[in-house]
């Protein structure tokens, strides 16, 4: 158990300010669960998938779900439901006629999972924007987005984040599906050539545009970029990093060496289904463990026993990550992610559970190819 964890648990048990804020956050989550279930299962506003689902049940979600804990009434959400069409079954009737985006996850083999979006990605990133320190991510400065694009949400989302903060976002394409294919087929040299191609474009943009202060990129691309350039000398003041697994040792390495101890480093965990989790503010007591807190009440992460997914593990224990998304655009109850992590207690900035040291779930028969970009 981390020193920070012990402190947080003691604070909660002491019944002081943190305990009260945890209670308030829980109440907001319960209210959100009621409201979102009422919305998705209302024939006037809900989406065809959930309305059809309700018809096959012998219980009425709108009356049965009165709080977050009641969501266990739903059977585990199957990722197969998100593979293939018709994609319109996920569009709430209340949003008929609105422009709809579709974002995909994975997809290096087979049919990718897809999620419809209308405004959610903008909302998620606007909320996330409030957590960014203005000193390191100055309002009005420009950004470089050097990471997964194509069918993924990230490019549009980061661009919106930048615009929301008054900046203009330069983007470089990166196709992670191609990278996974190169690795699977044993062609690492081609993968490195592709990485160099991406980095070269990023360097060109950085050198040509002096107002770029903020960078989004992935761990591997950050390493590759820092092999070629000092980001401090290039004028970068804040780096927002995500898109794949980050380890505690990478976190330390990035802060101390790649970013020379002079650039703000904001690691994040996000995915198409959840949105964007915030990183607990850096605290040396956490020993570089990367702790994420979901964007409650719009989404919640739980760390559960893989063999008994309704049992949340104790603080400090490893388990599989289970996601619940609760927005008017998209409702996903109890989806078992492909990740595992350590359950972490609420903190001052985020008074609800967090997940630490997220990594690919080790219980799969075939290891997930991760950490490649």
């Amino acid at each position, binding site marked *: 158990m981390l020193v920070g964890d012990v402190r947080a648990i003691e604070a909660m048990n002491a019944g002081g300010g943190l305990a009260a804020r945890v209670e308030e956050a829980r109440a907001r989550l319960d209210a959100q669960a009621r409201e979102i279930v009422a919305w998705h299962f209302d024939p006037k506003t809900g989406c065809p998938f959930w309305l059809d689902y309700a018809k096959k049940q012998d219980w009425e979600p709108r009356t049965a779900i009165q709080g977050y804990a009641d969501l266990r009434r739903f059977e585990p959400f199957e990722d197969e439901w998100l593979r293939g069409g018709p994609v319109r079954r996920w569009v709430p009737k209340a949003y008929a006629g609105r422009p709809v985006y579709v974002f995909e996850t994975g997809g290096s083999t087979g049919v990718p999972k897809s999620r419809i979006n209308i405004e959610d990605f903008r909302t998620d990133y606007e909320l996330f924007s409030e957590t960014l320190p203005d000193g390191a991510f100055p309002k009005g400065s420009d950004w470089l987005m050097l990471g997964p694009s194509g069918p993924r949400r990230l490019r549009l989302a980061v661009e919106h984040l930048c615009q929301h903060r008054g900046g203009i976002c330069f983007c470089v394409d990166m196709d992670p599906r191609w990278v996974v294919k190169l690795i699977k087929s044993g062609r*690492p040299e081609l993968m490195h050539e592709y990485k160099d191609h991406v980095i070269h474009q990023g360097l060109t943009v950085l050198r040509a545009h002096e107002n770029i202060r903020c960078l989004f990129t992935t*761990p591997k691309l950050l*390493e590759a970029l*820092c*092999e070629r350039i000092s980001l401090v000398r290039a004028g970068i003041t804040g780096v927002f990093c995500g898109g794949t697994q980050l*380890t*505690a*040792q990478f976190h330390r*390495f990035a802060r101390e060496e790649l970013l020379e101890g002079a650039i703000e480093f904001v690691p994040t965990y996000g995915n198409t289904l959840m949105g964007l989790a915030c990183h607990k503010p850096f605290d040396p007591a956490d020993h570089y463990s990367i702790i994420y807190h979901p964007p409650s009440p719009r989404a919640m992460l739980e760390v559960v026993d893989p063999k008994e997914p309704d049992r949340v593990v104790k603080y400090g224990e490893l388990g599989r990550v289970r996601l619940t998304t609760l927005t008017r655009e998209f409702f996903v109850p109890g989806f078992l992610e492909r990740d595992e992590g350590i359950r972490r207690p609420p903190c001052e900035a985020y008074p609800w559970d967090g997940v630490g040291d997220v990594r690919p779930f080790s219980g799969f028969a075939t290891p997930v190819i991760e950490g490649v970009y």
Partner: protein
Amino acid sequence: MLHIPILRHGRAYESVETFELVHHATGATVATVSQANSGLVARDIARMDDAILERFTVAELMDMCRKAAELFMTGALPLGDGRQTFDEYVTCLSATTGMPISYCRANAKKIQRVLSDIGAVIGGLTRGFDLSILDRGYGHHGGGWLSYHRVGRVFGAVLPSNSPGVHSLWAPAVALKVPVVLKPGREEPWTPYRIIESLAAAGVPREAFGFYPTDHAGAGEILRHCDRSMLFGGGPTVRPWLNDPRVEVHGPGYSKVLLGDDCVHDWRNYIDVMVGSIAANGGRSCINASAVWTPKHGRAIAEALADRLGAVRALPADDAEASIAAFGNVAAAEQISAVIDAGLREPGAIELTADGRGGPRLVREGRCAYLLPTIVWCEDWKHPLANHEFLFPYASVVECPTVEMADAIGPSLVVSAITRDKAFAASLMASAKVERLNVGAIPTYQISWDQPHEGNLFEHLYRQRAFQIEPAA
């Protein structure tokens, strides 16, 4: 708790991420080992001073190696926050690898030998030219100019855990002025760390060493960023590097003992050579024989080998009589045994050690396992079990006419051909498949240190250039 740090340009660095090295038999934690993230490895190699050893002559570096040889065997050398004596080193090495204590000591002597006889080793690799030529860059040799330049600016080694003897292969690079970057095998950080500390204590600048316990991705960074490197492994691990001339791949040896028509009638006289070739060092080296090829008497030879090796028992690593290593990873032992059993289900092969040992090949002792020596008689050299190498004393015995052997044996790291037949020896001499050739009753494990091993390290690190210089006025 003992902690083994990363060495970054020779300086200890404790990672946030560590893994526990456990005792193969008790499961008790022996040490924690810092794990390097791959980006850190790449960053350090790029920043390494590749000329750090140029300030010394080869002769001076060889003197340091000789001093290091002594220190390796006797010194209390730095390890993490403390120091480790030789006996402590041997105890730790045996604990995490499962190798018998007696073999650990024998392997340590191999390393001492390479360092103390570094002159002969380097002389063998350079075929005797004046080594000051490497200091000046050029010099007179054999009536003309000779010039070399160093292409191995930083030398990387991705090392195995199977036997400490392999570390004798990279160590001479230091005497050739090349800084080294090492990724130790997971269970065997002890020996490379101790060699580094011996050399540093003997005067080699610490900045010439990188030591990175790391994962597959970190190993890839070493191979990609070092100008020259060596990689131990097989199958998918080495496949991407097979056609990269910068990387010297050390895969399975498939070493063999061959009997000629002229000697086969005396085969009983050579059983000791065959048994030693198969089982020395617990059968864990690439220079252990994994097959015996003979023109006749195959079944009788196989039975005699089975009779001798069937007596081997699974004994604790600290038993002076122990002659095979334990597998701390029981699943790996089970997998090996299952592969052999699957092969035996193919018609034409029979395990001859099965009856003599009076029990199964796989022996479970507490939390570890042993694989007892296994001799398989194959009726045809094309049988799937005829050309396999495993991490324990295993050998097939096959019959094949000697005129066909050179073509049929396939790639073989060491061939000991027991023959005085010049034509047979010549056929092997002409074969590109044979890396090391012993003609006569020489065990496969008997290494002559002035000979190259799977490629000449000097030629890997240096390139000869054409050179002329205008005479001084």
